């Protein structure tokens, strides 16, 4: 089977957590690999290759997306929020603190994506019900916690 020759590059300008980056990227570059490999923002993770796990979840112009399901070129001109932008300097925000207090993370691999999904949920619904919380994070797989404490943490922020 012959390999497909990569289509040429393009310069993109992306704002991430308030900083603007300009980079030349291959057309097939995924947004997650752009964030992790080109910008060295390694907080967002890769847990699958089918868009199922949600470890790469980020906010794209305020909308929750899985960054493995977008190309970097699609983010040209967009504003992206990742886990690295949640804390105020060294001060964890309420949601991050709640995750710690409720032991809502073990290995921490799904956590960045989980935090971004919860952030999107709480912006839309500041006081979500448990059912709304579970729906809000249904696109994020966690293999450590059984979701029990993640739900409790989000609930406590929205209380």
């Amino acid at each position, binding site marked *: 089977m012959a390999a497909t020759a990569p289509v040429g590059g393009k310069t993109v300008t992306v704002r991430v957590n308030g900083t603007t980056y300009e980079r030349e990227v291959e057309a097939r570059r995924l947004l997650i690999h752009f964030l992790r490999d080109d910008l060295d923002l390694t907080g967002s993770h890769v847990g699958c*290759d*089918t868009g199922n796990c949600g470890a790469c979840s980020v906010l794209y112009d305020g909308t929750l997306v899985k960054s493995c399901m977008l190309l970097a070129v699609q983010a040209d001109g967009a504003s992206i929020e990742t886990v690295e932008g949640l804390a105020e300097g060294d001060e964890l925000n309420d949601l991050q603190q709640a995750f*710690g207090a409720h*032991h809502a993370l*073990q290995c921490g*691999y799904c956590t960045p994506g989980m935090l971004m999904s919860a952030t999107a949920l709480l912006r839309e619904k500041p006081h979500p019900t448990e059912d709304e919380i579970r729906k809000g994070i249904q696109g994020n797989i966690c293999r450590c916690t059984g979701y029990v404490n993640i*739900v409790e943490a989000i609930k406590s922020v929205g209380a």
Partner: protein
Amino acid sequence: MTETTVAPPKPVVVEEGKPQKGWAGQNVPRKEDKRLLQGEGVFFDDIKRHEMGYVHFVRSPYAHARIKSVDVSKALELDGVYGTLTGDEVAILTDPFFELSVKPGADMKDYALAVGKVRFVGEPVAAVVAATRDLARDAAQLVEVDYEPLQPLVDARVAQSGGAPVLHEEAGSNVVWDGTFDWGDWEAAAAEADHVVKIKELHFDRFSSTPLECSGCLVEYNRGTGQWTMYCNHQMPGVGAIWMAPAMRVGIDKLRFVTQDIGGGFGNKICLHPYFVACCLLARKLNRAVQWTEWRTDQHTANAHGNERWFQDIEVAVKADGTLLGFKVKALDDCGAFPRYEPLGCIIWAQVTPGCYRWRHIRVGFTQVVTNKSPVSPNRGYSRMQHLWLTERIIDVVAHELGLDPVQVRKKNYVKHEEFPYETPNGCVYDSGDYARCLDIALDLVDYKKIEEKRVDAEARGKLFGIGIGSTLDSGTNNFGQSMILNPELQFSGNNEVATVKLDIFGEIVVTLGTVPQGQSHETTSAQVVSDILGCSPADVTVRAGHDTYWNSHAGFSGTYASQFAVTGLGAVKGATDMLAGEMKQLAAVVLGCAPDDIELADGTARMKANPEAALPFMALGAILNANNAGLPEDLNITLNCRYVYRPPFEKPDLERKYGNLTLTYATQIHACVVEVDPDTGVYEIVDYAAVDDCGKRIHPQIVEGQVHGATAQAIGAATHETFPYDEDGNLLTPNFYDYHVPHALDMPPMKTGYIESESPFTSLGAKGMGEGGGAGIHAVCAALQDALSSRGRPIVTDSCNPYHRVWSLLQDPAASRAGVEVVSR
């Protein structure tokens, strides 16, 4: 006899306010959290090196085929490709990995890449290194491999039949290991029994814990020293190095493993040595750092499945009053294409031979075979889970067939609280516990007293209603001497773990561990233990994150596996800290002019008990010894840098009788599950669930409960949806999260937890290893389904995984599942 404390049956909550002295036992903030919550953890895939190359493996599309040729020339012509590695090179540069088994398994040849043949879909055949991930994948497609397909073997039950293809011709058989375990007197038990219940076949499915972070490494080769550094997520480097070094024909000191944060392991990151050897060879060949990150589909297809096991010709001896006397069974274990960590699974189950029960006559014929499927590796609950599923299925089938109450059968036959320490028929010593009490708590949590009302209510809504129990043990801290029962030539026994604790110049307390945490909070719990001994706060203690061979804080069995950190890891931490405390007192006594016994450690100082104002802050002690030591007595033989090797008290087992103490501690899990089933579709919902755990002294209750949640979620996933089925050609049908459905937040039932604390008399902290669980959720779901369906032709649940379609099949044809069940009564 140890003290047992009943706790209120509600989840642990975070305690507010400043914790008092006695840090162990409290929910202190986790040291790991701050970096992980900010995306500042360091997982292996986050690490980069200048001009590093990305590795992509060319993998077999066939389950079984002869390799006629491998041509990498077109891949090498692509711009940006740095180099390749083939099986032929591997066969020249390395020796096969050593095998743990006696013959025939001993003769199975396992290399870093396929040599001559492929034996499962996804088996690496060649590797390509290129400037980017995408380019490496492009180049891999240009590698031309000519295969001659062979007949695949996908059903372990025909692996020994005449027409079956033989995977490893050198071995001459598909059998890895077989043997008989015979304890007590089965014939006498059968003769004494009023009923012998026979079950033709039960099947424990393939699945795995599928950690969210896939496997991988970044490998650097230092040409000057001949050493490799692997920044990786291997969870058992001690044993990984023992596999890799001889195969690579180098001393073990040439291999340095470094980990920091690992995105879950669950045993699935123990057998990474073939991949790591390929990466090491490439780093040396290309004189370049190389990086390999496994793709999710490759993780499912080709890395590590849990052991699939068939239980056949089961016979159970039962008295009329429900007393269980014993059982016999033929176990057939399917380990996939290569043994790797196997055949250890052929003995690990024996840690829990009788499960939670007092029966004394047990005979197990155990055979393990290879098939053309992904190799297995330890998987949370490794090997004991399969066996405990058998014992729990036996209990529920016996109760079902003889019209007994499953709760009463359990209570009648559980090992009693007053019988601990309890020696099992094969010489294991259950340290402590109270199974009946745990069961009562679990039943209370699901409001068992009102269960019949609930059944009536569900039936009025057109649902079938069922309740089931799972009673399991999480045996922790292996005696590796059990491997000698499989192969007397092996030179493994006992166990060990290492920690170092030092007091540095400015008073810093720094801990290094030999363990390799993947979410189990070792930094936090270690700091609790250290601060209790040194009289300071966990916040004053720095625990280095992860594992590094260069820290010299490891031993042959170092790693994080098999539910043992609270015993081995914290045992080492306690040992090293006790040593350091003794040295700090010696030094303070010299400075203050008194005897070491006159000194106490408190409030971050070493001070005279009789005169607390005569106190030296830790900083002074660190500075005096490390930087201002002129005039100290010559015979003051201290370093303030203490290394301790924890070694549990084990003997080698009696190989003839296959008898001995195989693990040090036994944590208990008793779960209760309530289901409602739609009789028309087989769709079911878990409407109530309780998990009761007893792991002895809990160092950090919140962390313990988190492990209970996680183990339960994985068990529920395995019971309901997670399975690795193969088609007749040996293709995996669930090769990624698209097809392999793990529980999402909406799938999880409401979960209630409870606990008791039966301290272990055999460990320094009274704690027991925990975390794996025994798969109690799988057993509880199976039992609940069988109970729910019993009014519809009394089907028997014969499989560990029961997706809706299988439940529907049981509803459609209950007689089929009953065909293998028979009761012979006197």
